[in-house]
């Protein structure tokens, strides 16, 4: 009797363990919406110029996504933020952010305009306090680049309503995600 009860008890315990294990699994694939880092740069504006074309920067995959992730497909552009630095009484009349895999294959991502002073406070697509317009071709290009973990070339330029003074620069920051598995 005692032996039978013992055996029954052990079988019950093993069965409960198996039940616990079978009710549990890790989500497969487990997709993390990874915040891409450091897709940002500061562009200096040359004093005395009316148009500014401070050039392009390149962000390599290692700059914006950790090596511990495998891209699973899909990405999101969440926001683009522009901030002006320095004092200037005029306006930005045709700010333009272009993006691509190389300087020969650029698409406009965002155009913007407004008073330089307004941009002293960071302005973004989401906040919509100033005129910032998103271009779909640029969005498609950006998503393609990050999904393929390709280098991203970001070029920035525009015009001012009067000649630039000294100490002026523009910060650009792109908030994007890529869907990846750790």
């Amino acid at each position, binding site marked *: 009797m005692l032996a039978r009860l013992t055996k029954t008890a052990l079988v019950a315990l093993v069965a409960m363990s198996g039940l616990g294990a079978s009710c549990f699994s*890790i989500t497969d694939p487990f997709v993390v919406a990874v915040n891409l880092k450091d897709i940002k740069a500061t562009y200096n504006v040359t004093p005395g110029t009316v148009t500014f074309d401070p050039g392009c920067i390149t962000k390599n995959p290692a700059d914006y996504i950790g090596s511990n992730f495998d891209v699973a497909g899909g990405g999101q552009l969440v926001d683009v933020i522009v901030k002006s630095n320095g004092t200037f009484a005029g306006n930005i009349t045709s700010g333009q952010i272009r993006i691509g895999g190389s300087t020969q294959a650029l698409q406009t991502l965002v155009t913007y305009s407004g008073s330089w002073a307004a941009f002293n406070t960071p302005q973004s697509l989401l906040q919509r306090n100033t005129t910032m317009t998103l271009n779909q071709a640029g969005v498609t290009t950006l998503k393609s680049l990050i999904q393929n973990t390709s280098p991203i070339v970001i070029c920035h330029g525009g015009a001012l309503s009067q000649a630039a003074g000294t100490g002026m620069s523009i910060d650009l920051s792109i908030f994007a995600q890529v869907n990846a598995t750790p």
Partner: protein
Amino acid sequence: MTPGFARRRAAIVGVAFGVLFTATPARGQSGLESVIQQFSGATIQGYIQPLADALVANLSIGYINSTIPGRKLSISVELIGMTAAVDDAMRVYSAATPTGFQPATIDAPTIFGGPATEVQHSSIPGLSYRPSDGLVDAEYFPTFGPQIRVGGLLGTEVVLRYASSSMVPVLKEEDFPDLTLLGIGLQHSLTQYIKGLPLELSIGGSFNSIKFGDIVDLSSTSYGINVGKSFGLFGVSGGVQSDGGTMNLTYDSTDPNGAGDVDVDIDVKRALRFRVGASLSLAFLRLFGDAAFGGVTSYAAGLRFGF
């Protein structure tokens, strides 16, 4: 199923007390760490709170396996498994989207919530946002561990629960960050002071700690009162207990709205739960189990070897 996933699951199963987080071979960062880093300190709570709740619910039970502590000196080794029921309310939370995004909040999966979906901005075509998937797909969230029980100490039993991933040799540190579980429980007989009670009466309490890598540090306490009755080989008990705890998270966030070092406490609010338990004693073996019902329902089952 990919080989990597199979390895991960093997590693998971190998951890006897299984706080079941994925690990990425040779990369040194677990799935849990990877997803937590996407949140700022202000936004992590909704995702991780159900895990803290489940862990506290699990760790607070499994200490009582008799109606009352014995009067004779005893020592035993036990294997104990606890599991918390994951209900629908623990799978989804209202997540804030990035500042200025519309909609401002969305239903997003918690750590138990399964796949997430991408959300388009309601008025700016081209902008979208996606939360991360839930890491764990479970109806029940288990925790396991060995424990040692010493009884007969002036009507008191002391239980020490300890486990570490370093005790599982198949796990490599670079694949699976250190996981340490520590618990201590006490049960003290009140019946010895009050003669003539129809039921056996005791008080009990426990302190528990679980650490995962450098980012998760959870501690909890529980205390309560128990009544019980023995019927030969069988014993039944019940009682009420108060459980609560804190999960501390320390990590480096990549959230643009709150990037940088995060050190945040996730509170598991103290709450009452009602406990029922039963045991079956078979010579040097005892099979025991209990269940606690409250905000989170959890169950424990164990096997005791000793005298």
